[in-house]
């Protein structure tokens, strides 16, 4: 079944074959995958999906690969947690946390996009994969490349924290520290991608890579009992994730897997890097690049590639955007941990902080079925909360000390 028709320019509509290209040669607009929905409709069904593997590959009919998965076979299908306690705290009757903290194998939503990118890269004949990253993406590419036996190059800024470098080195890729600014890293990687016959996951195979994010929407709808939520709250870095969640829901609607999609898509950013949310607040359809300054490093993209499309999506779905301070990020991480037992990284704190704001402002209402996307595990960014979680209670090794400390009654 030829489910992929072409790559199509999001700006001028010019079509290209489904190869390793990402920019329109004519207008330099970004390319995305165009599917043959009439063909897909003849084979896809709720029953077929439910009988599929317990991974994101149960949605293979809507993913940009030609054959069977060869990399990242266990990614996705993470829990959709009914958040009774957090919902009660925020005044939302039916709140869910889509918990990608436990994604396989590297505990972030990047395992989804990398599984797709590397499977497609192999189909396109690549033996080497690469990425430019400061954290989660590098971990995921290195881990998947290791299991797939592919050569791997990870480019990182020279001043990256030791713990994050270690998270890459353990998989033994080629880790290249670039002496220079963030802009220098960006420019060099773009040029290397143009020179080498490598699959740079977020450059020349980006049209396929980005499609992996749709699986968060597919899983949400299925796990809700084939319903679309009323509201979703999505963290924004490049803005791609938000646009793909909307695309995923609309694809299910188009194929008759969902009756109607009236979901409001809401975007969340940290104030220290909020070009998209700021544009939304100012009523603009364009954003101004910023120099990031926030603890939410995994969202710190100052000139986001999909910022314009994220603004468009939020407008189309009648959603909203907001941002939170670093203190509110920490509060958000603690609130989620202390109500639902989920320890999220700083991006999760951003999502919960904005969820809280939108609920308080009445944008998310009591009866709205709401899903918040938690995209990475808190063990990766422990430094963000280390000074705000208190210390253990220290006692002498005696029962009386313990009883006295906690003002407990002596057992009868």
């Amino acid at each position, binding site marked *: 079944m030829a489910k992929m028709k072409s790559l199509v320019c999001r700006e001028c509509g010019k079509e290209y074959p489904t190869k390793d290209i990402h920019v329109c040669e004519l*207008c330099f607009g970004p390319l995305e995958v165009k599917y043959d929905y009439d063909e897909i409709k003849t084979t896809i069904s709720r029953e077929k999906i439910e009988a599929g593997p317990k991974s994101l590959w149960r949605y293979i009919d809507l993913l940009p690969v030609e054959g069977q998965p060869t990399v990242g076979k266990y990614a996705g299908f993470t829990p959709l947690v009914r958040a009774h306690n957090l919902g009660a705290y925020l005044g939302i009757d039916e709140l869910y946390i889509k918990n990608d903290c436990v994604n396989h194998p590297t505990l972030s939503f990047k395992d989804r996009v990398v599984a797709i990118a590397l499977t497609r890269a192999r189909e396109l004949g690549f033996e080497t994969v690469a990425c430019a990253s400061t954290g989660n993406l590098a971990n995921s590419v290195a881990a998947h490349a290791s299991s797939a036996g592919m050569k791997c190059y990870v480019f990182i800024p020279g001043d990256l924290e030791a713990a994050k470098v270690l998270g890459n080195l353990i998989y033994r890729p080629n880790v290249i520290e670039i002496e220079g600014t963030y*802009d220098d890293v*960006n420019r060099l990687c773009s*040029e290397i991608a*143009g020179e080498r016959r490598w699959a740079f996951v977020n450059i020349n195979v980006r049209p396929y890579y980005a499609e992996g994010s749709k699986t968060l929407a597919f899983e949400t709808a299925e796990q809700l009992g084939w319903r679309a939520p009323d509201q979703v709250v999505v963290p924004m870095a490049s803005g791609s994730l938000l646009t793909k969640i909307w695309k995923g829901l609309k694809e299910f609607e188009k194929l008759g897997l969902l009756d109607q999609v009236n979901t409001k898509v809401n975007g969340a950013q940290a104030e220290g890097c909020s070009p998209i949310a700021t544009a939304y607040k100012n009523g603009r359809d364009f954003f101004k690049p910023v120099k990031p300054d926030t603890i939410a490093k995994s969202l710190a993209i*100052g000139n986001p*590639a999909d910022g314009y499309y994220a603004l468009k999506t939020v407008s189309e779905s009648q959603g909203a955007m907001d941002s939170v301070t670093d203190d509110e990020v920490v509060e958000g991480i603690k609130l989620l941990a202390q109500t639902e037992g989920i320890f999220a990284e700083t991006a999760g704190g951003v999502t919960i902080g904005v969820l809280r704001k939108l609920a308080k402002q009445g944008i998310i209402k009591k009866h709205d079925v709401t899903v918040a996307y938690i995209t990475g595990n808190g063990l990766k960014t422990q430094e963000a909360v280390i000074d705000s979680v208190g210390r253990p209670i220290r006692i002498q090794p005696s029962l009386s000390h313990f009883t006295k400390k906690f003002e407990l009654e002596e057992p009868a």
Partner: protein
Amino acid sequence: MAKLRFHIRYPEEKIPDPILYEIGQEFNVITSIRRADVRETTGWLDVEFTGEVDEIDNAISGLRDKGCIVDPIELNIVE
């Protein structure tokens, strides 16, 4: 000869200035605008530069010296 593609953003106060023309005069590069949006308060161009790599680098530095933000056509790719 290399061909490199960039996204160039103008600061608001520079929008009336013929910056790309000046760059073409100051450096030995050919510029080809493929997409652009220039308004009262914002302006960006997607441009292909053709020339020797060192000369393109000099032209990019020149743009930055004039206050422009210059990124690869893919914008920020360090995720």
